[in-house]
């Protein structure tokens, strides 16, 4: 081989090596950038999936929670209806008892006696509803009260009827002290307890 040919071959070999290096560097550089970009995209994808998992969990929880809430309200509504109905039926039953004079008179006597004891005066005014004022034998009633009180006090019956289901208001003569023993007042005062007791019986284990 002539020296000239060897020289030109060396030039071309060196050029070939250099071209390979240039291309290889570009490829390596590109691959590295692609790998980095891929890792970055994977992190983005993972964030996206992580958000989706949280959203999915939320969607599922919300679905169940909506139904749970709706059914809890429905249960409370049912309970409330049953309690209201029981209370209404109780009032009806009380009205029936009030209509039965025999049993009611003894009860009314005890209400007036209790009121008179509580007020602690020698003279009281008893206020009744119009129905009781009409049907009750006042003389007999006064006698029953005196017997129950085991002492004699002056009882005056107000001619002005009160608006009440039953029961009585016992007041001082000047009307400044009043013991309200009407059934309406008892029902109103007892309502929270009535609801609790009814709830225990109706919905207790």
């Amino acid at each position, binding site marked *: 081989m*002539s020296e*000239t*040919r060897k*020289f*030109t*071959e060396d*030039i*071309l070999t060196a*050029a*070939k090596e*250099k*071209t390979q290096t*240039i*291309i290889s*560097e*570009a*490829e390596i550089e*590109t691959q590295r950038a*692609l790998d980095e*970009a891929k890792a970055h*995209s*994977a992190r*983005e*994808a*993972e964030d*996206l*999936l992580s*958000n*989706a*998992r949280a*959203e*999915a969990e939320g*969607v*599922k929880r919300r*679905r*169940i929670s909506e*139904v*749970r809430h709706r*059914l809890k309200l*429905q*249960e409370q509504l*049912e309970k409330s209806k*049953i309690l209201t109905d*029981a*209370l209404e*039926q*109780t009032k009806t039953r*009380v009205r029936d*008892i009030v209509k039965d004079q025999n049993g009611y008179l003894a009860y009314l006597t005890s209400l007036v*006696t*209790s009121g008179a*004891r509580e007020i602690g005066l020698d003279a009281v005014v008893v206020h009744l509803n119009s129905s009781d004022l009409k049907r009750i034998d006042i003389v007999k009633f006064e006698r029953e009260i005196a017997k129950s009180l085991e002492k004699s006090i002056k009882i005056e019956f107000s001619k002005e009827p009160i608006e009440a289901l039953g029961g009585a208001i016992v007041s001082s003569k000047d009307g400044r002290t009043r013991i309200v023993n009407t059934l309406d007042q*008892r029902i109103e005062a007892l309502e929270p*307890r*009535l609801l609790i*007791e*009814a709830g225990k*019986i*109706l*919905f207790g284990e």
Partner: protein
Amino acid sequence: MSGIETVKIIVDAEKEAAKMLADARTRADDIRKRLDSLIKEQREEVLQAAKKEAEALVQNAENDGKAEAREFERDAEGKIRELTARATARKSAAIKKLVALIMETKA
């Protein structure tokens, strides 16, 4: 071989070598130029797959939630029916107790 011929051969070889290098640089430039679109393509592919998976996750959760909610609803409605039936059966006893509470006196 004359001196001129020798010089010509060397000059041609250098020209060829220069062209080889220029071609290699052009190719390397092309490779680098394609990088942006490759990255974009690759990113879109990865994110598209992730979006599909995410949609499926949410859809499955929606379906699971509906199914669980239906099951819960069935159970709860059964319990409410039982509760109502039990309360109805006990209503008389409750009314009796309430009437007794209202009608009881301290006297």
